[in-house]
């Protein structure tokens, strides 16, 4: 198998990059390990989220804001070509605070981000009584919340399906069930193997937690680590939640999704009753009527985290033509990855301040 670009990893990052490269006329194949792999793209929360992103790296805040503003056109294009509704909604989002300490920290963090930027960074802190006007069902334990009008959410599984459908219907190739275990540079490109042999002029590593090992094969330092998140889904109910939050959202089809846990437990993607009951209790404090609802499913998935939590985008110095693209928040960034980052990988133009995201920041 041969192509101009080989994308290793078929999660949301891999397919966003593949779709975007194909859109600018490139010949692309996606290679994916398959269902037994860790796949954040199938287990995430589905937020298109701006609030709080980029604390410590203003370029990341700008990047996130830009992706959020690209999202409506990106979704329209995918819906038009595939007929798949992505359930994108960007009404703004709320981060609920259950104590004065939480509220002070949230406001300090967002103010810090705002002060580090030269562009507008909209957010406001709203106290319980005023917040009730936006979302009347909140409980008395909610001290207040930070509202950012740029936040939203989407159905991440329909997003994956739409990107795959469009990519494949335009002739994009997907190689499933192949775990790449060797990448070797040859004169005019890269030979990839993993049971089958593949060749591409350029290779983009989008393998999530697999990038650490693959990176070493092409001179890229990709120190990503797993971070576990647990999620629960309650039964479908009449839509009542107007704004998504990091803790809770009501999905397009009516189910209520809960979860904002973070744990460093290595490659363990099981749920635990302690964490699930903790996130459920917190959710009930925010929206007491959730105590009436039945839980349908729970699951856990592993985030792909770099040491500072920001993306890594880099071309290898030792092996030009080999790239790595990895991040947490791959749903939020899907639009900018597909529409902007691919122009850099495709050799068209490089976005401003791209060096901020180089993995070289982790080398001593």
């Amino acid at each position: 198998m041969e192509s101009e670009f080989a994308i290793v990893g078929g999660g949301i990052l891999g397919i966003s990059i593949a779709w975007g490269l194909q859109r600018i006329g490139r010949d692309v194949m996606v290679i994916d390990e398959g269902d037994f792999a860790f796949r954040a793209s199938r287990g995430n929360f589905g937020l298109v989220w701006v609030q709080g992103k980029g604390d410590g790296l203003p370029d990341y805040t700008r990047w996130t804001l830009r992706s959020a503003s690209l999202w409506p056109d990106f979704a329209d294009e995918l819906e038009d070509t595939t007929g798949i509704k992505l359930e994108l909604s960007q009404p703004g989002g709320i981060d609920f605070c259950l104590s004065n300490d939480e509220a002070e920290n949230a406001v300090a963090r967002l103010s810090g981000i705002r002060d580090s930027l030269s562009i507008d960074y909209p957010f406001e802190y709203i106290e319980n009584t005023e917040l009730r006007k936006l979302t009347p069902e909140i409980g008395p334990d909610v001290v207040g919340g930070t509202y950012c009008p740029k936040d939203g959410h989407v159905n991440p599984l329909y997003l994956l399906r739409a990107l795959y459908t469009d990519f494949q219907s335009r002739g994009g190739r997907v190689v499933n069930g192949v775990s790449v275990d060797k990448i070797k540079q040859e004169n005019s490109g890269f030979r990839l193997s993993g049971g089958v042999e593949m060749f591409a002029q350029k290779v983009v590593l989008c393998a999530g937690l697999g990038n650490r090992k693959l990176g070493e094969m092409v001179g890229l330092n990709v120190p990503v680590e797993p971070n576990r998140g647990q999620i629960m889904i309650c039964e479908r109910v009449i839509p009542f939640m107007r704004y998504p939050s990091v803790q809770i959202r009501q999905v397009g089809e009516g189910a209520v999704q809960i979860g904002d846990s973070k744990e460093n437990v290595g490659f363990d993607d099981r749920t635990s009753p302690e964490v699930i009951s903790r996130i459920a209790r917190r959710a009930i404090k925010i929206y007491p009527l959730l105590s009436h609802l039945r839980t349908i499913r729970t699951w856990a998935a592993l985030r792909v985290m770099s040491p500072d939590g920001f993306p890594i985008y880099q071309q290898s110095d030792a092996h030009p033509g080999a790239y790595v693209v990895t991040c947490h928040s791959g749903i939020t960034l899907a639009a900018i990855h597909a529409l902007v980052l691919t122009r850099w990988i495709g050799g068209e133009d490089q976005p401003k301040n791209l060096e901020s995201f180089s993995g070289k920041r982790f080398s001593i």
Partner: protein
Amino acid sequence: MASVFRFSRSINRDTRLVSIQFENQVIEAREGETIAAALLANGIDFTRKTPVNGQARAPFCMVGTCFECLMEVDQIPNLQACMIEVQEGMVVGRMYGPRNPDDDT
């Protein structure tokens, strides 16, 4: 078109007959069988309308996995009819669309 819908009990258990109420009808069921089984055996061809697009749906997997069989049982909404055994006098109804989160049931 004549309905080709037909389910019958593959094992004719000799358990006691119980009556349950389903949308103004009285349904004869066998003790030990589930609500879903009793309704299918009585020719009931849909048990809810999905909140996603209003389509009629009926029990599918019969083992608690697919959630196609959600019904209101004794006024409690969204219960899996394939996971609950019939009881004398039970009142069972279809779910039409999503439940109201305000109902404390």
